[in-house]
């Protein structure tokens, strides 16, 4: 168990950097928090010998009580077994703000850690239960799809495993619990590709022109997935920190509170993402050259488009004098989220620029991609502008939809990957392996990540010229997690609410029958919690038509 975590965080003097992945060096002085990178070995991996880039062998979900008790999720036994879900489905999911996470993480004691473990366990069970119920609400036909069923069994297995875990009372119990969490995290990586394939196969069958229910389902799944990973990873990191007795508050604190970094610097994040994207683009170009795909006239090598970064410092006013802060834009955030978003946006920009201008005269260089960063008291903004020719109106109409894009085979490439990467390094590695193949989920995942802490992501296109992507990240940490709760479309107003008899507090539900999860979310400290913008995504604070 310790061997798994020992690799994670090493306290190093600032001058040294330890490469954690084979081809990219991590500029940060400490190893990034990826305890499940491709280079570490876990017992699970050894058992099954899977890797992130192997050809699609069928990976079975973790052996779980599902296999012991029932053979199939369609069996009648399972129908009755589902009752155990009730206890957890009735409960609301508790969304916290970033500040709450930080505060909690900083005041860690052994007793609190044990408490935290129990809290995490209950939260995970609740959120998993909600998602399992979501699956169960899918049309039967959709549930028959093998990919969907795979994920369903995976979730059920995870649920069972967590449920069977007794209450954690000591630090040793916590260690066992952490072990389970890790394996669950690893399993969880199998989810997204399968879901994407499943949804795309289902969407190909005629479900009506404007049907959006699968989209909403997918969004709920992805949002919840991020939230569960967040909980699990945070707990694992806090356990480790407590184990090694790292100081999170005092002088020697390195700024990490679990996976949250309180001193995220916009310029650092940007430069790392830029570097990775540039490397990736060059690799692709080299590959193309090697394969002889380039015509002889373009022998004069065009370097990939430059990424010009402009960071505008904030303005601080001191009395009548306006003084520009000499510090960088620094805020508390989960760096892996932001890295992912920036990587996706930049690699899209670079990719489309290269595609658009590759046929041109090879002597001129590609038009640069421009990245602008700005900030005010409450938010940090990133704008990626490219000259990649813009987005076709037909494509733009369905940019954020899975269902509408599936029939065109957009998610076909998910057949090639087994596991979804969870860190920017993994993502970069995978991108390199895949070459120029585009998975089709980068934008939607980025938007979900951006909206997770109350931010947003918008894309505007000028057809024939280029595209602009805007990201807004709240920096005060006062927005609660966006778990994407909304009215469940599959539940009819007259549907009987199961579990109604058990729980008296459900009585107020009768006024609002549509919302299955009512009382759905207890949002703590939610000034300005984002309301649904009407299309399943958050309402925009920065864009208006």
């Amino acid at each position, binding site marked *: 168990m310790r061997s798994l975590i020992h690799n994670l965080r090493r306290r190093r003097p600032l001058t040294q950097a330890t490469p954690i992945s084979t081809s990219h060096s991590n500029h940060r002085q400490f190893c990034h928090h990826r305890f499940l990178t491709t280079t570490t070995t876990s017992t699970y991996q050894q058992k099954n010998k899977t890797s992130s880039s192997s050809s699609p062998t069928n990976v079975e979900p973790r052996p779980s009580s599902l296999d012991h008790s029932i053979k199939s999720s369609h069996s009648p036994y399972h129908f009755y077994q589902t009752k155990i879900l009730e206890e957890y489905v009735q409960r609301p999911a508790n969304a916290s703000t970033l500040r709450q996470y930080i505060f909690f993480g900083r005041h860690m004691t052994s007793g609190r850690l044990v408490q935290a473990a129990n809290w995490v366990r209950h939260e995970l069970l609740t959120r998993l239960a909600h998602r399992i119920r979501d699956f169960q609400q899918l049309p039967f036909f959709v549930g028959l799809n093998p990919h969907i069923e795979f994920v369903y069994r995976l979730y059920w297995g995870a649920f069972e495993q967590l449920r069977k875990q007794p209450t954690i009372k000591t630090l040793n119990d916590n260690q066992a619990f952490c072990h389970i969490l890790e394996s669950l995290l690893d399993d969880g990586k199998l989810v997204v590709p399968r879901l994407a394939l499943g949804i795309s196969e289902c969407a190909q069958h005629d479900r009506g022109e404007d049907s959006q229910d699968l989209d909403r389902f997918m969004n709920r799944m992805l949002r919840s997935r991020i939230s569960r990973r967040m909980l699990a990873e945070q707990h694992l990191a806090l356990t480790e920190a407590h184990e090694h007795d790292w100081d999170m508050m005092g002088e020697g604190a390195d700024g990490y509170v679990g996976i949250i970094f309180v001193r995220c610097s916009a310029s650092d994040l940007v430069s790392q993402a830029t570097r990775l994207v540039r490397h990736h683009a060059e690799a692709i170009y080299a590959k193309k050259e090697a394969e002889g795909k380039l015509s002889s006239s373009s022998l004069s090598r065009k370097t990939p488009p430059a990424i010009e970064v402009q960071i505008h410092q904030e303005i601080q006013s001191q009395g009548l004098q306006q003084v520009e802060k000499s510090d960088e834009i620094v805020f508390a955030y989960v760096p892996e989220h932001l890295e992912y978003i920036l990587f996706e946006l930049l690699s899209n920009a670079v990719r489309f620029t290269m595609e658009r201008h590759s046929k041109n005269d090879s002597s001129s260089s590609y038009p640069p991609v421009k990245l602008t960063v700005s900030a005010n008291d409450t938010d940090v903004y990133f704008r990626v502008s490219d000259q990649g020719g813009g987005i076709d*109106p037909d494509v733009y109409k369905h940019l954020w939809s899975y269902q509408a894009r599936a029939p065109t085979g957009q998610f076909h490439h998910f057949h090639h990957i087994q596991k979804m990467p969870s860190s920017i390094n993994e993502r970069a590695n995978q991108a390199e392996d895949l070459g120029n193949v585009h998975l089709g989920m980068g934008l939607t995942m980025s938007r979900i990540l951006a909206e997770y802490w109350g931010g947003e992501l918008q894309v505007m296109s000028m*057809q024939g*010229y280029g595209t602009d992507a805007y990201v807004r990240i709240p920096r005060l940490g006062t927005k609660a997690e966006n778990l994407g709760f909304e009215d469940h479309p599959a539940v009819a107003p007259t549907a009987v609410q199961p579990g109604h008899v058990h729980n008296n507090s459900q009585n107020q539900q009768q006024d609002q029958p549509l919302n299955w999860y009512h009382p759905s979310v207890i949002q703590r400290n939610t000034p300005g919690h984002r309301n649904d913008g009407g299309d399943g995504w958050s309402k925009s604070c920065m864009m208006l*038509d």
Partner: protein
Amino acid sequence: MNLSCTFRSLWPRYYIHHSSIPSLITRSSKTNLFIKRTITTKTNEKLAAHAFYDDKIITYANRPIRPVTLSQLVRFGQPPLTKASLRECAQYARTELPVRLARRVRAFQTLPFIVGTNPYIKEIYKLYYESFESLEPFSHDRTPNDDIEYSENLKDLVDRHADNIPTLARGFLECKQYMHAQDVAAFLDDMIHARIGIRLIAEQMIALVRQEQTGDTTDNSYIGIIDTQLNPAQLVKQCSDFVAELCEFNYGASPETIMDGHTDATFTYIPVHLEYILTELLKNAQRATVEFAKKRGLSQPPPIQITISHGQEDISIRIRDQGGGVAEDDLNQVFEYSYTTVAKASEDEDPSNIFTGIAEMAMQSGIGGPLAGLGFGLPLARMYARYFGGSFTLVSMNGYGCDVFLKLKHIDQSMAELEI
């Protein structure tokens, strides 16, 4: 007293800053109709009573509007321009315009009384009334070759109504507390939408007459007021030069405009519309840039970047500024009429700056029209953009700047059935 009242009511625009007008309003609103008569002019008196008993307005207003499709409008002026097609166009305009004008008058008459007594609103109302009166005879009397005379009348109409919007804007700004914002918005939406249609028909007619008269066939790209080879980059340059002058006059500095993208693209559109939209947007951008630069203590305001893109279906114009952006609270309201952030800006400024007040005044009655502050720029620009199926999007990076995306569809065959 009566004489000066006459003067004031006939040319109220010159008395924009005159403080006695508000007091006149408050006094007259409290008095009854009888006393009001003694301080208003004979013209007003005549108009007021006349309007009540005039059933011509009602007759015309009750007639249905006969929309003309864009393709018809274009067809009227398609070369070769014959007398026959001109007469056809004229016939349409003669019968149609009085109906539309009457409807506008009727709309004014349904405004709350107190709003109707506001001098600015009243002025526009009278303008529409008089235009209706002058054009109405043409719809049933017809003498040969009076098309020329008719188009002279139309020219007069178009000229006199040129400043409708700013005047109305002022009027409604003053009447803010007497009407619900939604009612004002509904009235203004209808008003402006109808106005665009009326002017379109009128100006098309005028242009065709002129074309026929002068026999000018050299400028083949124009069909009336529609330019089939409109180069947006050129228009942008013109507008930004104009606004820059205005800005220099008001602030002493103006930001540079950098243009890129497909600068030689052309498309079919109505130049005056695009010009209006661009002017409004550039006014906003330049004002914001200069004010923000001053706030940050920069010596030179950062440039405004305008990108033009020629796509399959539309032309996109992106105006990117570093004017500080729009705050979230304001963003929800930028498209509302009479909402302006100008007043707020002046609150933040150093009170010891004596030029602030002067600049404010100059800004609102600047040469060639107000620079900013009436709260109509964005809603109007959006309406013009949407008139032919375009779109208008504003993205704000608060604390940095704004990007405005204007997408305009080519006016072509696909729009043939669009009704005006």
